[in-house]
């Protein structure tokens, strides 16, 4: 395969480079993509970027999705974009609270002021309202700066398991209570790989190679030598620190974000109809999406569940 | 002499007020020096602006015998109207610049005009550095510099001392005889009007009706003798009386 020219492929992430993108950087850094005949360029996201639009418009070939709510929206807007794999079995979205303030149990959280960003507010928070009685009027905006949360002991804040608790611990001087929403019934996939329907139809082999190589990348990132990948991340995002990268990787492993549950049986990246249906039903109940949505159009299982990457497991 | 430009039944009002000029008939003949005399606010400046095409009459017609001459106007406004960001030289150069004459080519003409008004050493001064009279002289130089076919002058010498004024009167007459310029002149000085013009019109204080017309022989030599002779006194008295009549009074 080395004689063949590499296929140029671009992949849009949804945030600045961080450990949550580690597998993709790994696959570039350790030559996995190249071995699969791919020359991958990562297009970093940012607070306002919309990777899915770039994908739909053909500016990139693959994009990273944050959760399945957005996938349902894509179906609703009839945008020809399809999820082909999910790198995270568990969506690392969390809520944090101050310890010892009467906010130590998940059931206590709805009574507190909640710092929530807009994108979470219109999605996950709607489900939290319906499932746990969270209230809209308690919401204050989260501008990706935890200072207001730290300043207000009676508040809770959204975050990523792999990131915010670290900042709060270091700067706020206390260890916050962390509630992983997945533990409370929020069962969306996360860090998905999406591509255009036409790419799937026209070049399924490319898609398959990208999925397989990314899965390998994730394996290697978590359990192999990830120094080169981390260096690449820091190059793309100079603010990234070794401390945070180490913390994030530890949390990813500790909670089996990438490789727990179905992934242990079918391989990293796997998705199942049953779980997507379960999540869809929850979202319908929460009023986030309509019940008659043909949500199955938004994903395909044909590229995953082939145990890719399991051979590299070194647990 | 044939009329260069004539007003027929021209009326002009501002807003809804009484007309400033009411059905005025007026001919300006080729080569003459016509002075408009009249009380303050009677419409002299307005008449000049109509002649220059800077204002449009509400009714009546303004017709030019030779439309080409309509383009060769000079106008000394009642106020200096200088560009504050240009020095004196460049202000005087402006009309030539607007006609596309290069600065180098225009320089002798501009210098000549500045000499004429006694500002040869002030070419680099800005308007704000000039005295009132100097500003006005700059504006006069600007009007002269194009050698216009018809020169409209609205109280050009009012801000000047008598010596300078007399000199400029002489210079104006010399220029006129050299170039054949037609001049329409507004002045408040009866003596100046007599000295300079071949015809004086006195305008009534309301409506701009022509109250009196005084013809002065163009062949007269306008010099020291004329200014101090009996004909001058006589004409001056007639012009003064015309002015008084124009104001609705009589001695």
């Amino acid at each position, binding site marked *: 395969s080395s004689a063949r020219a590499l296929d140029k492929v671009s992949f849009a992430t949804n945030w600045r480079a961080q450990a949550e993108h580690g597998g993709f950087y790994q696959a570039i850094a350790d030559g996995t993509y190249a071995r699969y005949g791919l020359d991958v360029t990562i297009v970093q996201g940012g607070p306002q970027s919309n990777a899915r639009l770039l994908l739909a418009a053909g500016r990139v070939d693959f994009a990273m999705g944050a959760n399945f709510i957005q996938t349902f929206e894509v179906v609703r*807007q009839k945008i020809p974009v399809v999820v082909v794999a999910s790198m995270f079995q568990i969506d690392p979205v969390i809520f944090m609270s101050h310890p010892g303030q009467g906010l130590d149990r998940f059931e206590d959280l709805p009574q507190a002021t909640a710092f*929530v960003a*807009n994108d979470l507010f219109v999605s996950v928070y709607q489900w939290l309202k319906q499932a746990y009685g969270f209230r809209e009027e308690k*919401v204050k*905006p989260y501008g*990706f700066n935890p200072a207001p949360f730290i300043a*207000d002991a009676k508040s809770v804040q959204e975050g990523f398991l792999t990131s915010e608790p670290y900042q709060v611990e270091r700067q706020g001087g206390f260890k916050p209570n962390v509630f992983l929403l997945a533990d409370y019934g929020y069962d969306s996939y996360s860090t998905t790989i999406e591509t255009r329907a036409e790419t799937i139809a026209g070049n399924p082999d490319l898609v398959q190679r990208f999925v397989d190589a990314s899965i390998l990348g994730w394996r290697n990132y978590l359990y192999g030598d990830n120094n080169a990948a981390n260096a690449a991340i820091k190059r793309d995002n100079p603010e990234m620190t070794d401390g945070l990268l180490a913390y994030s990787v530890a949390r990813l492993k500790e909670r089996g974000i990438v490789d727990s549950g179905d992934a242990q049986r079918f391989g990293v990246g796997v998705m199942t109809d049953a779980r997507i249906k379960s999540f869809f039903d929850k979202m319908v109940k929460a009023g986030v999406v309509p019940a008659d949505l043909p949500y199955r159009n938004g994903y395909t299982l044909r590229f995953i569940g082939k145990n890719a990457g399991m051979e590299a497991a070194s647990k | 002499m044939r009329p260069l430009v004539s007003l027929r039944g021209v009326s002009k009002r501002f807003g809804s007020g009484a007309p400033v000029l009411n059905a005025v008939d007026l001919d300006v003949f080729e080569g003459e020096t016509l002075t408009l005399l009249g009380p303050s606010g009677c419409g002299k400046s307005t008449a000049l602006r109509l002649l220059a095409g800077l*204002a449009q009459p509400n009714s009546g017609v303004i017709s030019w015998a030779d439309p080409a001459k309509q383009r060769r106007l000079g106008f000394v406004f009642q106020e200096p109207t200088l560009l504050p960001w240009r020095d004196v030289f460049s202000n005087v150069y402006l009309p030539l610049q607007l006609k596309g004459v290069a600065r180098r080519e225009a320089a002798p003409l501009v210098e000549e005009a500045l000499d004429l008004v006694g500002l040869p050493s002030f070419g680099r001064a800005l308007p704000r550095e000039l005295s009132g009279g100097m500003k006005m002289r700059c504006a006069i130089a600007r009007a002269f510099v194009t050698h216009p076919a018809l020169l409209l002058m609205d109280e050009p010498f009012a801000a000047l001392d008598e010596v300078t004024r007399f000199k400029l009167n002489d210079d104006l007459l010399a220029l006129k005889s050299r170039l054949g310029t037609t001049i329409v002149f507004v002045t408040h000085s009866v003596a100046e009007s007599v000295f300079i013009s071949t015809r004086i019109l006195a305008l009534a204080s309301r409506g701009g009706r022509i109250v009196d017309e005084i013809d002065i022989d163009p062949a007269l030599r306008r010099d020291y003798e004329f200014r101090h002779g009996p004909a001058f006194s006589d004409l001056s008295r007639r012009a003064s009386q015309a002015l008084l009549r124009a104001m609705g009074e009589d001695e």
Partner: protein
Amino acid sequence: MLARVLAAAFPPLLAFAVVLGLWEAAVRAWEIPVYQLPAPSVIAQKLIEDRALLFSSLLATLSITVQAFLLATICGALLALAMSQSRWLARIIAPYAIILQVTPIVAIAPLLLIYLSPHHAVLVCAFLVAFFPILSNTALGLASVDHALLDLFDLYGASAWRRLIYLRAPAALPQFLAGLRIAGGLALIGAVVAELAAGAGGQGSGLAFRIVEAGFRLDIPRMFAALALLSVSGVAIYGALSLLSFFALRRWHDSVRERGG
């Protein structure tokens, strides 16, 4: 009067119709997908469908806009007045005004939220966006007074206060109003950006939230519908401020009065 306003409005409206027509045609001809650029007809339909939601959001945004605008007008004008009183004072104040102008509100909004309610944080942010042009233009206007008129006031030993209200303030009016025209649009966009940075989502939230929500849902037509409302509001604000200028200045200022004759 009405006829004149209509006559004045006709050409821009015609041009606008042409622009919309071309847009519609282009979208159809090149089959641009709706999530890249929706056709005007699609946007209009969305505007009608979602009118209740969008208009209540518009009202919320406009309410912030108006408050921020009034605050900016008052503070900008007062600060400019203070600066016109002394060159020293002006030199001391100016840097802070500039700092407020160039401080990104996304950065300070979270800190503001520590001390202020979201509503007030939004107001402060929107105010910050709008006030500098008013300050700057008014200061220029106050400084541009004809020196001959200043001499006149010196002659009569006018107090600083009288010099201000009888001379500097009226002389600065044209530039002040020009500052308002710039600030009107900025207050509107400031209200939007401020809401993004500091506003709480949910019911009673403004157009910014609707835009972000629509973006998140990839409901691009609704996003454009919200943008259309913003645009119309912006043009209306500008139009209103232009009319205000016109009526305030038409008697004497060369920028608006008809040329004589």
